[in-house]
């Protein structure tokens, strides 16, 4: 197939490598040292502290030195897994993140294709609109959406009533659990599709014209070209934007916190991060909060690894 042309197999000079092994190792170590130091400092140490704190009863009293530390072992985890609310929130988070990821990819992908097909002026307008959404800080974006969807004074309700939907007068968009999740998901998709769109657009226009021409000369249909030429070439980019989106949407905090007033009516709209904040950090139970953080990290690593393995199994190098 056409895309195999692009992949150059690295040539290994095996005996030479073995002979120089030691020198190479030191050189590699020297090259890697700066990265290792930065990763160790910025990632390793916080992660180590996170795991450590999660094993203690560590609250504000302990942090500011007013009370002795108590080692709990896995006590925080036991308490967490024994809380039925945690499981509800976890399920909600997974479902909500899945909707956001799929929505973001669909909207971003569709608009990337659109951008690659239209003329310069409409494309520029599309990009300006997308970059506007992208550049808006999450808190500001969420607040603006809340103004638009306000129960009493919101533009959306006013327009809907004007269009004849009288039932929408004073309609509360954040009262019902699923309506509230839907509204937040729409906001999340709105502010995260530009990243997907810009990335995929760059990928699409980078596909050499000759390859597409060759495909059409071979008599491939549009669907076939997309399936066997364009998508495989975009694959590395798709992997990146999918993983990024999964990580972002799973860790979502601001939008839920701002738009549902800290987790919705009776905590209906809690997601893991807001739950961790409410249960643990706002209540100064840092040990418990860290335990939730560790669980989230492990879950995200697992999801990412499974995803990468599934991709590798399907036979495509990244």
């Amino acid at each position, binding site marked *: 197939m056409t895309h195999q042309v692009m992949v150059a197999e690295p040539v290994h000079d095996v005996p030479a490598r073995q002979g120089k092994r030691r020198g190479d190792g030191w050189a590699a170590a020297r090259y890697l040292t700066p990265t290792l130091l930065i990763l160790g400092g910025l990632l390793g140490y916080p992660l180590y502290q996170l795991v450590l704190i999660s094993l203690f009863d560590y609250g504000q009293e302990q942090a500011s030195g007013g009370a002795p530390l108590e080692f709990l072992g896995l006590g925080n985890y036991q308490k967490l897994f024994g809380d039925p609310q945690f499981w509800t929130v976890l399920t909600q988070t997974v479902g909500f993140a899945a909707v956001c990821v799929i929505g973001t990819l669909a909207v971003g992908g569709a608009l990337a294709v659109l951008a690659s097909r239209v003329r310069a002026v409409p494309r520029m307008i599309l990009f300006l609109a997308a970059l506007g959404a992208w550049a808006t800080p999450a808190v500001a974006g969420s607040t603006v959406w809340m103004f638009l969807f306000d129960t009493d004074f919101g533009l959306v309700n006013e327009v809907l009533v004007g269009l004849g939907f009288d039932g929408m007068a004073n309609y509360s968009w954040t009262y019902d659990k699923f309506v509230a999740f839907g509204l937040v998901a729409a906001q999340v998709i709105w502010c995260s599709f530009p990243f997907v769109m810009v990335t995929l657009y760059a990928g699409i226009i980078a596909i050499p014209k000759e390859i597409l021409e060759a495909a059409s000369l071979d008599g491939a249909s549009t669907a076939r070209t997309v399936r066997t030429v364009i998508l495989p070439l975009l694959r590395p980019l798709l992997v990146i934007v999918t993983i990024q989106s999964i990580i972002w949407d799973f860790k979502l905090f601001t939008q839920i916190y701002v738009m549902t007033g800290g987790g919705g009516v*009776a905590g209906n709209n809690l997601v893991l991060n807001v739950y961790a904040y409410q249960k643990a950090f706002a209540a100064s139970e840092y040990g418990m909060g860290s335990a939730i953080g560790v669980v989230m990290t492990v879950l995200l690593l697992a999801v990412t690894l499974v995803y990468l393995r599934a991709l590798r199994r399907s036979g495509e190098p990244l």
Partner: protein
Amino acid sequence: MRLRRLLVIGALGTLALSGCAPVQSASQSSGTDEKSGTLRVWLFDEVNRAPKEAVVAEAVKEFEARNAGVKVDVQYIQIASRAERFKAAFSDAKSSPDVAEFGNTDLAGYVASGGFTDVTADVSAWPEGKDLDPSVLETGKVDGKVYGVPWFVGLRALYYRTDVFAELGVQPPKTIEEIAPLARRIRQAKPELYGISVGGKYTYAMLPFVWAAGGEIARQDNGKWSSTVDSSAARAGIARYTELLKDDICPPAQCAQNGGDASVQQFVSGKAAMTIGGNFNRQAVEAGAAKGKYAVVPLPGTAAGSVAPAFAGGNLLGVLKSTQRRTLAKDFMQLLGGKQYQEKLYRAMGNLPTFSDLQRTLGANDPFVKPFITTSEAGTRFVPATPAWAKIDAQAVLPNMIQQVITGAQPIDQASSAAAQLMNSAFTS
């Protein structure tokens, strides 16, 4: 192989060096007492800050004139993010103020964190200190020690629209039982109005209902707190409050997510016939659609003529333990928290003073203040004075309970039992 071994040894070394316990900061007391330099002060930001800022600026000017070489740096912090700000201040003396305003419900937690310094001796040596209302000073104490000067009291009472009541020919409720039927009747006659604007997150409006019914949210026995929010008296009070959050009074779809500010805001914008509002809401109400068309009465209790116990809210001024200018900090706390500036703040903001004599003179001259003074004299209550309260508050235990009930997700018995369980686990943790 050697490289990998080196890396492992390095990593293990780092672990050993950093020790196997989370960091704890040392005791915060600085021990120094400088007499010049910059005195850092944190005050809360307000919706309409200008009048507060003007009074504070006056106090700063007076203080700087009195103490040569001292500069007072006032920062206004957001109430919503106060918890993070104070936690950071307690953990790191460099980012900490010398004097701070804080809510009395937060005090127990702050003291347990070792954030504020004991000022019992300073307050008793202070000539104005003896006039402080004893029940209000009680809200500044933990285990008998004073940790702050009460700066103002916040009490809530029943606001109602005089024009609506006159038009419908109804009288303000005489007992707490009368509120719901009256509110229902008003909404029936005027469907565009909420009968009474209260909210699913408005804990301080719910508490008087529980207290009036003879209930408590928690009880202390031998120093141990336990929740009583699932007692039958407390449940009766919760039932009376949640009855107001029904479609025929204040529909859950609109009111379930309202806290105190949002509930009062409905009254301010003319969408509610009654609300439970504080003396501190006066400016907002005066600036809104209800201006000149409202009056305030104490929230009635179960017997006609009685007053439902109100929550004694309010803010204190305290000195942080980490201060390097303890004397200056104490002096500024006593200046800004003294009678002169409390009276100025009352004139500027409507904040109720914490001095009994000042309360009496002001109450005699201002009909607006009178119902609040009556409420104060009838006896006020407070939330459990334990650090666990901050936890219960942060975890939104009581708002969640109210919301479970008004959305019909759980009956009162079940919701209050669940809340009691959560409270108890906070008390014992």
